[in-house]
Each structure stands twice: as structure tokens, then as C-alpha cells.
């Protein structure tokens, strides 16, 4: 029996390959992600270990200032204190910008956005390994600067030129003369992709911390013979718990750990898509084994006739599955390692040519083999049981392909559909209470499973309709009828495609609804025509001078200007809360169509605070209640009275809005945003240009047309959608293999028919046409199902999130049409191999084929 299984497997290499590819793809995806993550961690740790090699012990303060994003400053006195610790050779105060506070202005006068590798502002403490001075010298005066070769390279500034920067602490642009260009050992321009600028210590302190006499870190050199860890512990004991004392090794681990976390989140997404790919391949394997069992009916019946037990038949099919699973797992693992390594190398390119170290975690090997074997064998269980039910008499009969009932699929699928529909109705009619989203998710999942199981039931009627469009000729008609011959097989093949299309369509519906909701929000509720604010996202928010608000009001064509301040460090009972100040509350409410719920929401006294209904509910606040808010700039909390409550839903969310007279105590005393409404018929471009002139000294601030703003937000959704679609192409690829597989095996099964057709005069191109029609019918069937189910699920999810954000439903008709066309193209492509095989048949042998 064992030998017979091996022989049978080897005699059908094509089917081995086809069913294997699906698993290989899934395994590659998952192991590739795992390998990439492990390799990246190892590589980045290696890189930072190199970077911190020269650091013996470093001191930083525990905790960061929530307002500035900077670590709490370390007073100068601490440096002297550390220097006295036994075993310290020297202690140097460092200033290092961890939040992109200092922004470089490029040669076009624009701020360099804080994307990708960071730009670091630091104080000059001399040349230390691995630094090396390429040109000039370090900054000696407070208007001088040294920059890293990577920074010089990317901006084009050269030695001796003026280098403009702007600090979001001071909001002022300053220029520094470049006195030196710094590189690193080994001819590198950067350690890990970062760009660095060095100022004198006082200049760096002012720019980064807004104050002199303090540092962000202290660098400690150990006296010779003193162990880093020992010194760390001694200093830690001296300074107490408000400081973090770390060795260079600790730092390298900590920083690489942060990168690792980001990559981990990204990896989990990749693994999720890998799981979809594996899920799709299950269908492919079930189908392949079902067809194989059908073809081997006589062979298996002969085994039974010769005395093989049912268990032996099951084992023979499962053994075949196990062999395919092991092989596919191993090949998938190999490819996954390659992909992971390539991915790490590609990511390494972003970090200034980081050396990619390959690391294959045990989890990758285990999951590769587990997925390969378990998935394949699970998928083969049903076909194996069916194989065991073949009676010995089948060996003597003509292998009649008795049509099997689709009733069980109808019943089970129907139950799931009804359950899902019920849950959905329950959730949407608002009877599910707090569990609404859970019930909703359960309903959607149940509907999806139901739809998948129900597919064979609608296969025949739907396939017949689709096929009718294509049966203008005899070959077309034959292709259509062939696709309807075995509804279960057609359905399972189409299901693999359906899953991919369902997911992209559902996500597409959510994406286009999100964009439509954004559009509607901006059109209906935002009366502001221009929003003046930060040009690029960064951790610190740039501001502009308060006087500019008045100057804007004077620009011809401007109807209304509302300035907004934000205190990022404000707390209530120690918890950070969002506190906003405006100079014209009525104007703000008008611009964002915010409605009054209670009290006065038009004006604000110095001690008044306005909140919205959500905040009132969440914090249990009523009109007239007192709120103790501690603003960043004031040592003690100040008492505010709730003077008005607005309806939720407008701009600002759940924050506390107070009068702008309090802005003196904010993180930045200057406004961070302004909203401008224009006179009817005013020339938007002209006003924008004039306001831009007013903001000439604020390169971090831009004037945004609101319609352009909504475009920017929509762009983000576009990018997410594109990434999702690209990743799901893998699942689609597996589905294509499924169609190829089914058709190839069907062609083999119908060898005699093909022989007959060729004998009575069907040309090769007509045979190709026949196979193509069958293929296209199956794939279009899958695409249509996917579109329908995906649209349904997407709409259901949108309805569930209606109150959250997605208030407008929009269907992505263009992409849906694209998927339908893609279905046709996939069908045509998938037919190529089976059609080739069909045409390769020898007519004579085909006719007498058993």
C-alpha cells in the first residue's frame, strides 16, 4: 500500500507540483515575515551596538515632557555630581534632539519634513570614535555649526555656507555658518541613516530645550579597569530614581527594541495576509485531492477488492497529503528565508547601508512545517474519507461520475447565512446594546462562512447564466456545459478566487466610504476655506506669532479669522487632557457648524470652559461645574467653570476649550492654527499668496486650502488601500493556480471526449476556445460572488461604523469593475496550460483512453 502510494504520487508529478505551489506561497509569506523580523532585529542591534561602542555609561532623565516630547532636562549640577563618582574618568553634558524640534530649511526655503530617518540636533563635544572630521572644524562660536556628511549631501549645503534652521521652541528662523563636515569611520556618511547637526552647547540648549544650563544626557567615560556595569550601578545609586543610567550595551538594546516593535506591528499585518493565503490554499488542496480521488476510483476500488481496509485507503490519501505538505513546507521555508533576507537588505538600505545579518528563528521553521503538513492533511481529510467509501465493485464498473447532492451545503451554508443575517439585524436595529460591534463582527464572519459554504448551491444556475453570454459557438457552449458539470468542483475552485475578491471589495467599500465621509464632512460642516497650520506631521507642533492673526484679518477678501492655541501638557488630576484656546468661540462654532446644547457657547470669559456632550457625559460634568486644569506654564491648577456645552460631532472632539487669554501659560504662547473664512467670490489663490507673505518667517507653517486638505487625508486611505490590494494579490495568485489545477485535471478526466471532438473535426483553436470559456466562466463566477459578498460585508461594516465615522456609504464602482475584468483575464490566463495539454493529446490514444 505504501509503495503503491509513492508510485501513484510519482506518476503524477504535475498534480504534485500544482497542489504544492499553493502551500509553498502561503508558507513563503509567513516564514518570510518571521525571518525578516528576526534578521532585522539582529541587524539593527548590531548596528546600534557599533554606534554605542564608544559609550561606557550614559545618563538620561526618567520620563519625558509631554508638551515638548523632549526628555526632562538634566540640570548642569548633575554633571559635576556624576564626575565625583568613584571610577568616573569624565562626565560630559550632551544635548540631543529626540523629537525633531530643530528643523532644517532647505535651499528652497522649505522645511525638510520629518519622514524616515531622523534629523538630530546635538551639542559639539569634540571628535569621538566613530566620528571623524572630513572638512573644517567643530563649531566654536554660537553662530557656527558642524553637520554630518549625510546632511550635507541631502541638502546641498557646503562648508562655509549659511545653514538655516528653525526650532519649534522659539518659532524663529536662525542661520549658522557651517564650519565642519563630519563623517564616520569606514568612509560612512551616517551611522544608521540619521542626519546630524552639532551646535555649540549654549546654542544647542536654546534651540532644543529653550533654556541654558541643562542637558538631555550625560556621557560618562569609565576610568580604566572599571567595569561598565559596575559603574552604571554606582552612578545609579548616587543619582536615585529620577535618572536612567545605562551602559552602551543597554542603550543599543533599548533603541533596537523600539525599532523592533514598529517592525513587529508591520510583520503582524504581513502574517495576517499570509494566513489568508494559507486559507485560500486549503480550498485548492481540497479540490485537488477530490479530483485525484475521483480519478483513482478504479485503482482504489481495486485495492479494496484485493482486501485493503478502509483505514488503509484513508491512510494512503493522507500519506500523499503529508508528503506534499512536507515538501511544500521545506520549499516554502527556503523561499521564505530568501524573501526575508531580501526584505531585510532592502530595509537596511533605508538605514544607510546597514549590514543585513540573516537570522532564521525556530518559529519560522516550526510554522513552515506545521502549516505545510497540518493544512495539507486537514484539507485532505474529506477527500480521504470519500475515497474510503468507494465500494470494491467500482473497480469493475465504468467509473460513473455520479452527481452528488449539494443539499448538505445548502443546509449548512443556509444556517450560517441565517445566523449571520440575524446577528446583523440584531446589531443594526440597535438591540444589542454595548456588544453591538461584537455582534456585528460575529454576524459578518458568519455571513462570510455561510456564503463560502453555500457557493455550490448557486453554482449551477449562476454558471449557466454567465456561460450563456459566452456560448455563441459550439466550443463556447461545450465549455459552458463543462463548467456546470460538477457544481461542487466549480464552486470550490471559484471560492478560492471569491475569498480574495471578497476581501479587497469589502476593504474597498470601507475605503471609498471613508473618503466619501471625509468629503461630506468638509463640504457640510467646515465653513473654513483656509486652514493655516503645520506643514508636516512632527512630534512638536510649530506655531506662529499672534500678531499675524490680526494681519490676516486685514487681508482683502478675508471675512473671518479664528486663531487656535493648544496646551499639550495640560493635566486634570495628573492626567493629560486636550486643552484648546480660541480667540473667537462663536466664529469657531460657525466655521465647524458646531451646535449649542446648553449654556453660552458664543463667548468665553477668562475662567470659562466649554466642553461637548461626549466629554460632559464621560467626565460627568454639568453646566456650572468647576474643573481644575493645570496648564503647562502654571505651577498650580486653575479653576474653570463650565459655561457652555456643545453638541458632539464637530471639530475638536472631547477637549476643553478655554479663552485665548490663558495661552500665556500654554506650551507655546503662540497660536498653532488659524481658520480663515473668505468673502463670497474672493480669489482663494490671491488670499493664500498674501497670507503666505505674512508667514514668510514661518517655513513650518503652510496655508492649506480645505479642499486640498481633504485630498491629503484621502491620499492616506488610497495608500492603505493600495497596500492591502497588493498583498491580497498573493491570495489571488493562489486562486489562479486553483483554476489551472481544476481545469488541468478536468481535461485529463475528459480525455476520451476530447479525442472524440478532435476526431469529428474540432480544430485545436476550437479546443482552446472551449477550455477558455470553461475557465472564464469559473473565474467570473468567483469574481461575481466575491464582489457580491464583499460589497455586502463592506456595507454591513459601514453600517456598523456609521456613528463612529463612516456616515456616508460609497461603492468603489471603478475598482469593482476592474475586479470583474480581472476575473475574465485570470480565466483566460488560467486556461493556457490546460488548453495546451488538451491540444497535446493524441487523438487515437484519447479515443481509446479508459
Amino acid at each position, binding site marked *: 500500500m505504501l509503495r503503491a502510494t509513492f508510485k501513484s504520487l510519482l506518476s503524477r508529478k504535475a498534480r504534485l507540483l500544482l497542489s504544492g505551489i499553493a502551500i509553498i506561497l502561503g508558507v513563503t509569506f509567513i516564514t518570510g515575515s518571521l525571518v525578516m523580523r528576526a534578521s532585522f532585529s539582529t541587524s539593527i542591534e548590531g548596528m546600534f551596538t557599533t554606534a554605542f561602542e564608544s559609550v561606557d555609561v550614559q545618563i538620561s532623565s526618567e520620563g519625558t515632557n509631554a508638551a515638548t516630547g523632549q526628555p526632562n532636562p538634566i540640570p548642569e549640577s548633575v554633571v559635576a555630581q556624576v564626575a565625583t563618582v568613584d571610577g568616573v574618568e569624565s562626565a560630559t553634558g550632551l544635548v540631543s534632539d529626540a523629537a525633531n524640534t530643530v528643523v532644517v530649511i532647505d535651499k528652497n526655503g522649505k522645511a525638510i519634513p520629518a519622514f524616515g530617518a531622523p534629523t538630530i540636533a546635538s551639542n559639539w563635544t569634540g571628535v569621538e570614535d566613530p566620528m571623524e572630521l572630513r572638512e573644517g572644524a567643530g563649531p566654536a562660536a554660537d553662530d557656527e555649526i558642524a553637520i554630518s556628511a549625510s546632511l550635507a549631501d541631502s541638502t546641498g549645503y557646503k562648508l562655509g555656507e549659511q545653514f538655516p534652521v528653525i526650532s519649534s521652541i522659539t518659532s524663529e528662523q536662525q542661520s549658522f555658518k557651517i564650519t565642519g563636515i563630519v563623517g564616520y569611520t569606514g568612509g560612512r556618511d551616517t551611522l544608521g541613516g540619521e542626519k546630524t547637526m552639532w551646535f555649540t552647547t549654549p546654542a544647542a540648549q536654546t534651540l532644543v530645550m529653550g533654556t541654558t544650563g541643562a542637558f538631555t544626557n550625560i556621557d560618562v567615560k569609565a576610568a580604566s579597569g572599571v567595569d561598565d556595569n559596575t559603574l552604571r550601578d554606582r552612578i545609579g545609586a548616587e543619582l536615585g530614581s529620577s535618572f536612567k543610567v545605562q551602559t552602551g550595551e543597554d542603550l543599543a538594546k533599548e533603541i533596537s527594541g523600539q525599532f523592533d516593535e514598529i517592525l513587529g506591528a508591520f510583520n503582524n499585518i504581513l502574517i495576517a495576509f499570509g494566513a489568508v493565503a494559507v486559507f485560500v490554499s486549503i480550498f485548492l488542496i481540497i479540490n485537488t485531492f477530490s479530483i485525484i480521488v475521483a480519478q483513482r476510483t478504479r485503482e482504489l476500488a481495486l485495492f479494496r477488492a484485493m482486501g485493503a481496509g478502509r483505514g488503509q485507503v484513508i491512510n494512503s490519501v493522507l500519506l500523499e497529503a503529508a508528503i506534499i505538505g512536507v515538501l511544500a513546507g521545506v520549499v516554502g521555508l527556503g523561499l521564505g528565508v530568501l524573501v526575508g533576507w531580501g526584505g531585510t537588505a532592502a530595509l537596511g538600505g533605508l538605514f544607510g547601508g546597514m549590514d543585513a545579518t540573516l537570522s532564521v528563528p525556530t518559529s519560522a521553521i516550526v510554522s513552515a512545517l506545521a502549516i505545510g503538513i497540518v493544512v495539507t492533511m486537514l484539507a485532505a481529510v474529506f477527500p480521504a474519507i470519500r475515497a474510503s467509501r468507494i465500494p470494491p465493485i467500482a473497480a469493475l464498473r465504468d467509473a460513473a461520475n455520479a452527481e452528488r447532492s449539494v443539499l448538505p451545503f445548502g443546509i449548512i451554508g443556509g444556517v450560517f447565512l441565517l445566523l449571520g443575517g440575524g446577528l446583523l439585524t440584531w446589531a443594526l436595529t440597535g438591540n444589542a446594546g454595548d456588544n453591538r460591534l461584537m455582534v456585528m463582527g460575529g454576524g459578518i464572519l458568519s455571513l462570510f462562512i455561510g456564503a463560502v459554504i453555500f457557493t455550490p448551491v448557486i453554482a449551477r444556475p449562476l454558471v449557466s447564466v454567465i456561460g450563456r453570454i459566452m456560448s455563441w459557438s*459550439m466550443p463556447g457552449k461545450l465549455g459552458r456545459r463543462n463548467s456546470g458539470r460538477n457544481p461542487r468542483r466549480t464552486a470550490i475552485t471559484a471560492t478560492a478566487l471569491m475569498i480574495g475578491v471578497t476581501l479587497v471589495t469589502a476593504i474597498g467599500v470601507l475605503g471609498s466610504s471613508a473618503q466619501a465621509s471625509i468629503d461630506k464632512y468638509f463640504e457640510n460642516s467646515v465653513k473654513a476655506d483656509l486652514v493655516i497650520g503645520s506643514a508636516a506631521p512632527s512630534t512638536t507642533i510649530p506655531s506662529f506669532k499672534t500678531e499675524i492673526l490680526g494681519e490676516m484679518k486685514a487681508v482683502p477678501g478675508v471675512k473671518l479669522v479664528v486663531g487656535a492655541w493648544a496646551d499639550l501638557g495640560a493635566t486634570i488630576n495628573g492626567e493629560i487632557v486636550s486643552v484648546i484656546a480660541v480667540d473667537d468661540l462663536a466664529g469657531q462654532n460657525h466655521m465647524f457648524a458646531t451646535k449649542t446644547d446648553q449654556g453660552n457657547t458664543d463667548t468665553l470669559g477668562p475662567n470659562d470652559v466649554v466642553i461637548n456632550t461626549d466629554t460632559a457625559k464621560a467626565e460627568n460634568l454639568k453646566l456650572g461645574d468647576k474643573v481644575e486644569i493645570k496648564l503647562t506654564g502654571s505651577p498650580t491648577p486653575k479653576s474653570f467653570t463650565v459655561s457652555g456645552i456643545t453638541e458632539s460631532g464637530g471639530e475638536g472632539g472631547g477637549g476643553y476649550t478655554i479663552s485665548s487669554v490663558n495661552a500665556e501659560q500654554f506650551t507655546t504662547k503662540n497660536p498653532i492654527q488659524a481658520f480663515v473664512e473668505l468673502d463670497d467670490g474672493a480669489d482663494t489663490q490671491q488670499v493664500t499668496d498674501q497670507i503666505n507673505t505674512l508667514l514668510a518667517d514661518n517655513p513650518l507653517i503652510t496655508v492649506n486650502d480645505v479642499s486640498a486638505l481633504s485630498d491629503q487625508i484621502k491620499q492616506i486611505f488610497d495608500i492603505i488601500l493600495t497596500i492591502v490590494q497588493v498583498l491580497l494579490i498573493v491570495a489571488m495568485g493562489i486562486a489562479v493556480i486553483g483554476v489551472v489545477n481544476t481545469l488541468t485535471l478536468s481535461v485529463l478526466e475528459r480525455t476520451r471526449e476530447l479525442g472524440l*471532438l478532435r476526431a469529428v*473535426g474540432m480544430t*485545436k483553436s476550437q479546443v482552446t476556445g472551449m477550455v477558455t470559456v470553461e475557465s472564464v466562466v469559473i473565474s467570473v463566477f468567483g469574481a461575481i460572488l466575491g464582489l457580491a459578498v464583499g460589497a455586502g460585508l463592506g456595507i454591513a461594516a459601514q453600517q456598523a461604523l456609521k456613528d463612529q465615522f463612516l456616515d456616508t456609504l460609497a461603492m468603489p464602482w471603478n475598482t469593482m469593475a476592474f475586479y470583474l475584468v480581472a476575473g475574465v483575464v485570470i480565466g483566460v490566463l488560467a486556461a493556457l496550460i490546460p488548453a495546451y495539454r488538451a491540444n497535446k493529446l493524441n487523438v487515437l490514444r484519447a*479515443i481509446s483512453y479508459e
Partner: protein
Amino acid sequence: MASTTMADAGIAARAAGVWKVYGTGEAQVIALRDVSVDLARGRFTAIMGPSGSGKSTLMHCLAGLDTVNRGEVFIGDLRVTGMSDRQLTQMRRDNVGFIFQQFNLLPTLTAEENITLPLSIAGKKPDKAWFDQVIDTVGLRDRLSHKPTELSGGQQQRVACARALVSRPEVIFADEPTGNLDSKSGAEVLNFLRDSVDRFGQTIVMVTHDANAASYADRVLFLADGQVVDELIDPTAEQVLDELKRLEEIVGSRQTQAEGH
């Protein structure tokens, strides 16, 4: 054989000096050795012979299903030898009809669609009067909308006969058409073939090992060891049986001689 057209208008199919060899070296089998036959138009010819005599090979070569190693094959005026796959396909579609032992009907098509299949493939419409005449002759009028699985073996083979006949081919080749049928159904099919020769002037070439089936033919060719060794005109079943017995003895003695060497 320089001329590529048939001089004699009375010949429907012709083999001239045909050799067919399978395999090479030790494993070489000569299926046909220098076979030349003329099959008259409007006649019913049976080809007989012991197993391995080459009778099926001869039919396949004549029908353009297999190629020959040497010699030439003609169907009507067409020189089959040397045709491309496309030409062969077209020739089979337009000039030849087939009836197989296994019925070979398409299970997805109804009886009527199976009958008109060669015409549909060619994109032609059946001649209504002729179609009706064929259907009535085979007696399938009330079975036209049935699928093959709903028909008996005899009915299925009659559908196959009608399919071969409906495009009015130059020749119909029948390969053991009664091999899978009981004697009553077999007789029906043979009577129908005989009828189509007598009434419509159809040319039929039938390979069979059944002496009774051969007795329906106008002429019986006997093959042994890849050669035409004898023929009978208007034979009875007894004559055919006697001839077969004689041939088997000759073949048997030859094999004994060969083994003696």
C-alpha cells in the same frame, strides 16, 4: 504514384503501398506492410482479421487519425498523406464520419446536439429534410432531447450512427460498432448501416471481428500480419467464419515456424 487525384470516380477511399511501423530496433512492429486497397463508393466494406493483423491500424490510417510511414492514402479526391494537422482536422470534419465501439457521445449534450455536433463545430446548419430522414431511419425521433445517460446502449450507438451520417461524409468508418452491444441492438445498428448504404448510397468501412456483423457487408477484406490476404464478395456468416479459421491456422503455423528458428 505521381498523380494526386483519383482517376476512378468510383473509389471513396484508397490506400496505395501503405507501410506502418511502430517502434524501432528489437521492439519494432510492422503493423501494415505494403497494403494497397481501393474501397468502392456506395459500398459496405468490412475489414477482418485476427488480433494484431493490422485491421484497426488500416482503418485509422485511411481515416486520417494516424499517419503512414510509406505509401499514400486518399479520401475521395483528397490526398490525406502529407496533410497538416489543420487540414486533417478539416478533412475529418467534412469528409469522414466515425462510429466507435465505446459510442463516444458527449455527456453534456442532448441526443440531437450530439448528432449535429460535427456540423456545429464547422459552424454549419443541418439540412432539415436530410436530418429528419436520418432521425426517422434510426428511429430516435422521441429521444432527441435526452442526454446520453438516459439512453440505452443500442440507442446511444444509433445516435452515433446518425451523427456520422448527418454531415453526408465521403466515408463512414465504423470501429467494432457492435462490440459493446447485445445481439438484438447490434442487429438494429447493422441493419441501419446496411440501409444507409442501400438507400442513400453511403460508403461505409467497418472493422469487426464478428463474422455475423461482417455478413452484412458487400465485401470483406481479410488482413493477416499487416497484409491483405484474401477477400469475399457478398459473404454469408459461415463463409466468413471458415475463412477466419483458415487464416488463424496459417498465422498459427507461421508463428510456430518463427519460434522454431
